[in-house]
């Protein structure tokens, strides 16, 4: 058996050996769920087609969503594990639009730490089939959220900062804006009733519905909140904390030590999320591991710890992490522990040939 064929067989056996249900979702899926979950940014990668009723379908762009949807439809609650290997379809700048991914999804497992370890071990094992020692990059979504909750600032700023986490430019722009905020004396707040009347009149005059979409109360309250925020500054010390924290990136143990020092200096309790990250370093074996404090996927259902593994060429070979908010987003009534990863088989094969 030739090298490529043998690697494929080994990957097949690894996927089978996960003690999981082998998942094979349909190739043609409703596109709506993807747009709903991941928005236009991911939507532009889809290969779309429209049926005679006008409904949009896409060629399966990933395994996670259909696997999780089927799990929810079956009635959630029971721990479940799924593994997969097969083609997915995405428009990409380079490479064919059809390519293989392998991966696992561990849902509602009793111990989220054990589950993430299995995910990390799977990703490492898959990559080592190709003889590659990847560079591992870890990110701490849970760690950042813990820091954000404790940092001293007006509450209304927390979701605004959280929303930009993972988008370095947008977050830097927000911090710069907060740093530049002028120290204006607080003006008298405009009267809420008068504003409501104005906005309602304006909406009626331009034919906007008052109860579909943003209504007058939402607009006025946000306007007033903004006025209040302009007066309620984020303390300079907090901004400095956020900047120092986000700039931390380096070998995992050193980076975590720096974060501990920062936490101590600012009297933040970050012990639990930092310990959680430390525990997983073992599952990563010999690979060089970098902890990057600003690293996070741009999707708000990620929680806890996230990771990506890259090859010599810098391409992401495997990525995943914990996403305890995903099932809720897809219709489950309570958060359910979830972790998983996907492995880019075509990139692994390309890395071997390079």
């Amino acid at each position, binding site marked *: 058996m030739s090298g490529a064929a043998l690697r494929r067989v080994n990957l097949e056996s690894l996927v089978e050996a996960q003690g999981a249900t082998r998942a094979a979702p349909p190739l043609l899926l409703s596109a709506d769920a993807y*747009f*709903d979950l991941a*928005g*236009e*940014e991911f*939507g*532009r990668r889809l290969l779309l087609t429209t049926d005679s009723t006008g409904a949009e379908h896409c060629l399966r762009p990933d395994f996670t969503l259909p696997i999780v949807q089927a799990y929810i439809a079956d009635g959630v609650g029971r721990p479940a594990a799924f593994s997969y290997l097969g083609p997915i379809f995405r428009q990409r*700048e380079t490479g064919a639009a059809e390519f293989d991914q392998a991966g696992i999804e561990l849902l509602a497992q009793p111990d989220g730490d054990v589950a993430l370890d299995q995910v990390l071990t799977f990703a490492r094992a898959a990559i080592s089939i190709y003889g590659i020692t990847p560079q591992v990059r870890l990110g701490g979504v849970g760690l950042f959220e813990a820091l954000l909750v404790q940092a001293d600032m007006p509450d209304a700023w927390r*979701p*605004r900062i959280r*929303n*930009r986490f993972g*988008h370095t*430019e*947008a*977050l830097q*722009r*927000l911090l710069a*804006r907060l740093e530049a905020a002028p120290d204006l004396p607080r003006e008298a707040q405009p009267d809420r009733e008068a*504003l409501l009347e*104005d*906005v309602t009149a*304006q*909406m009626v*005059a*331009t*034919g*906007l*519905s008052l109860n*579909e*979409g*943003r209504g*007058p109360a*939402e*607009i*006025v309250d*946000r*306007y007033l909140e*903004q006025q209040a925020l302009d007066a309620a500054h984020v303390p300079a010390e907090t901004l400095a904390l956020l900047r120092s924290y986000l700039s931390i990136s380096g070998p995992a143990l050193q980076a975590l030590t720096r974060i501990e020092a920062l936490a101590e200096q600012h009297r933040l309790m970050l012990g639990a999320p930092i310990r959680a990250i430390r525990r997983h370093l073992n599952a990563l074996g010999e690979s060089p591991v970098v902890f990057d404090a600003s690293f996070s996927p*741009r*999707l708000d259902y990620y929680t806890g710890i996230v990771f990506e593994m890259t090859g010599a060429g810098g391409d992401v070979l495997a990525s995943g992490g914990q996403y305890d908010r995903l099932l809720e987003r897809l219709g489950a009534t309570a958060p359910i522990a979830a972790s998983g990863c996907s492995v880019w088989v075509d990139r692994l094969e390309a890395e071997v040939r390079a």
Partner: protein
Amino acid sequence: MSTPSLTLAVPSKGRLEELTREWFAENGLTITRPGGARSYLGAIDGVPDVTVRFFPASEIARELIRGAIDLGVTGLDLIHETSETGPAAVQTLKPLGFGGADVVVAVPEAWIDVTHMHDLADVASDFRSRHGRWMRIATKYITITRQHFAAAGIAEYRTVESLGATEAAPASGVADIVVDITTTGSTLAANGLRVLEDGVMLKSQACLFAARKPDWSAEKAALMESFLTRLGLSAAR
């Protein structure tokens, strides 16, 4: 082998056709349309090795990006919209100074709390939890919208394709805000919409573009060179 020739595509109708032909005339080239307004084939007086084709402006953008035509006059907005890789696939030889318009983000006048893109980012981020759906943007500029919203860090929205009267979408309930093209902003204002202070995504105008084709024969490259020289231009390599 056939003798090499160049294909120049110009807009097939309306004001854009007139202004394009005027621009070439001012530069000493008379574009003729022997079959009249219903014909799609034309020529340039005294320049037999250039074939003129009359196409709708959006098709010119597409064919330039594909490399199916060599030269074309169309809007910069259409080059950006037709494909994410459009701007890289063509060479802008000359902005022509007409057909100017901006692609802008506009919100209902009543949204007094939204003046900048960063306000929109905040509104978009909790739109779903407040209203059970994503914020909707009506536009015919889906590619441009996606690129600019991604750069602004806004991921939580859906586009609704709108091929006409985009400015009416918020009032008709089809969308919450619009991305539209405007010259003076007066149509938007008349529909109760206001352009965000940093809401200009693209300043567009009609330009003369060339396809980027590295595989041209020496004869064809020479032909292009001499045609551009006539227009007082040179092809940046």
